[in-house]
């Protein structure tokens, strides 16, 4: 069983190489390779997840290259990482169904796509801090390239901005690792956690500096306000397929890394001993929730609005990490999965709507239900779920986080979390109202949108695709996301109980 662990990273890397080489022999063969690799990846993730949850609280560990634990690179699968790994595999496969028609179709695109999946899987299962940095950079590089894969100049500018800001984030993370390494002489997360807990051995200033640098570095990657500036441009500038994928996974895995580093490496003892460290997390969370929502309300382009919504939702996850008791961390895991499904689905629905009707701004969504019933329906369900209406998964995540806040007695945080629901309603409510209860805009507006859209479609035709119209795969993906958002809401509470032992182990290690 443990020998299966490295395959979670190896399979997509191998697929990436095959997709690239196959492109030399036969163009447009990348999609098939990507699907094969993703299915294999999903199978590996499924088996690992089944094994991880078979014995709750247990961890499957594999040390690369036959070294011993504190020296070699350790790969770890426990309940939490298995969840995220399964999420990465499932979402990347789902987005592929959408990408079949929506493109981009070139083989290098799918090679980079699989590289991104490999980086994300690596970040999820690694138990070594420097190894996490390497996977963070692989993820970053692949994400920059994917954002730039749009055919307009806008994509390239957004990608360059993303690259510059993202590199600073990853570099700060590396600098923080440096401080932790100087303080302890080890890079293995569990070992690092044990050595940092022996406060006499480690200079507290080193530990504090390491914490601050690592957390701020990851804040940039998670896109917490005010370090989010790369994110709206990148999400809005990327092709629809790519914004669906990266909005669902990249920040999610970075937030998972934050949770992992804060609790496996530093631990609750460190947070209790350093109120400033705790304050960084709380401050980032509160500002992100409130300002992210306010910025989302003021956006006119739908994809930018969704991007700012992510800023706010990840604020909620950082809040859960800051609260740091059992229910809150279960809530963080549930909301990570839920947000990935909902936000990925929303971006893909927005892409579907744009393909069918050309509507990309809030005004153009007027009366959308008549022009694109499936797109509007899925968008509506996902938006309601994001607001947190029971029984959807958005509700389950927020419920657990709020429960954690109550148990911890963090009343001000609880107020912000409840307010975040209202703020989410503020920006999604107006869209839902426009989609379902307003007359469509008069013809000229739609005409203009269609002409604007036709230039993009002309490029798609040149690329060998159909001029317009959505494929069955696009509908299926979007509808599946909407169904999942509701179905996971029912599954979330059972899952919460399954995850409980893992979270208890995580909290008790230091």
């Amino acid at each position, binding site marked *: 069983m443990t020998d299966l662990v490295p395959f979670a990273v190896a399979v997509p890397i191998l697929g990436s190489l095959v997709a690239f080489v196959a492109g030399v022999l036969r163009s447009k063969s990348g999609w098939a390779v990507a699907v094969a690799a993703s299915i294999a990846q999903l199978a590996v993730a499924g088996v690992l997840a089944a094994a991880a949850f078979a014995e709750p609280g247990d961890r499957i560990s594999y040390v690369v290259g036959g070294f011993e634990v504190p020296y070699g690179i350790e790969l770890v699968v426990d309940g939490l990482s298995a969840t995220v790994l399964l999420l990465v595999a499932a979402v990347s496969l789902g987005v592929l169904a959408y990408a079949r028609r929506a493109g981009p179709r070139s083989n290098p695109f799918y090679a980079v796509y699989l590289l991104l999946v490999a980086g994300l899987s690596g970040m999820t299962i690694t138990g070594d801090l*420097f190894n996490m940095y390497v996977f963070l950079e692989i993820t970053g590089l692949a994400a920059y390239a994917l954002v730039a894969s749009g055919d307009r100049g*806008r994509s390239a500018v957004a*990608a*360059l901005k993303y690259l*510059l800001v993202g*590199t600073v984030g990853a*570099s700060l993370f590396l600098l923080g690792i440096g401080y932790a*390494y100087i303080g302890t002489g080890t890079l293995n997360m569990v070992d690092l956690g044990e050595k940092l807990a022996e406060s006499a051995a480690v200079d507290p200033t080193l530990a504090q500096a390491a914490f601050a640098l690592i957390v701020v570095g990851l804040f940039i990657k998670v896109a917490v306000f005010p370090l989010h500036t790369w994110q709206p441009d990148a999400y809005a500038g990327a092709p629809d397929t790519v914004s669906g994928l990266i909005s669902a996974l990249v920040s999610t895995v970075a937030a998972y890394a934050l949770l992992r580093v804060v609790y496996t490496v530093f631990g609750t003892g460190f947070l209790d001993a350093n109120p400033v460290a705790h304050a960084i997390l709380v401050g980032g969370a509160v500002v992100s929730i409130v300002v992210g929502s306010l910025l989302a309300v003021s956006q006119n382009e739908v994809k930018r609005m969704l991007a700012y919504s992510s800023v706010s939702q990840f604020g909620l996850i950082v809040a859960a990490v800051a609260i740091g008791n059992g229910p809150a961390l279960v809530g963080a895991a549930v909301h990570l999965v839920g947000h990935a499904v909902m936000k990925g689905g929303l971006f893909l629905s927005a892409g579907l709507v744009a393909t069918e009707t050309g509507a990309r701004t809030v005004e153009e969504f007027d009366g959308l239900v008549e022009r694109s019933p499936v797109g509007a329906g899925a968008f509506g369900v996902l938006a309601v779920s994001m607001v947190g209406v029971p029984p959807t998964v958005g509700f389950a995540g927020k419920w657990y986080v709020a429960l954690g806040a109550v148990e911890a007695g963090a009343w001000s945080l609880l107020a912000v979390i409840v307010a975040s629901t209202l703020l989410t309603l503020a920006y999604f409510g107006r869209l839902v109202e426009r989609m379902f209860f307003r007359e469509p805009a008069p013809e000229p507006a739609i005409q203009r949108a269609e002409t604007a859209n036709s230039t993009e479609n002309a490029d798609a035709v040149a690329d060998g695709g159909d001029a317009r119209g959505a494929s069955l795969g696009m509908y299926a993906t979007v509808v599946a996301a909407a169904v999942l958002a509701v179905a996971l809401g029912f599954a979330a509470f059972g899952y919460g109980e399954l995850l409980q032992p893992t979270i208890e182990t995580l909290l008790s290690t230091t």
Partner: protein
Amino acid sequence: MIETLAAKDYYVATFLLLGIGTYVMIAAGNLVKKVIGMNIFQTGIFLFFIASAYVDGGNPPLLTTEGPHVSPLPHVLILTAIVVGVALTAVALGMIIRIYAEYGTLNEDTLQEVRRCD
């Protein structure tokens, strides 16, 4: 004060490089210069790791040499980080070429004006 700084000259250089890199990334109007700033920033971190691994009178970590030995790990880490840095620079320059092909400028302010007309 001066003595402490002089004893830690490598670390002082590290943080000067970090500061210069950040400043160039923010202040330079030219996109290529921003990438150069990013490289300087990363170099500061490389120096930080290497300086931290310095052992006075240390030998290479071979069984045949006498102690004290130098830990090879930071050097290996930085080799990896340098490779990552090269890859990042290549991707960044690739994007800059596309931006130049699309808009015909590398200046940040001009780029903003051109894009506003878009």
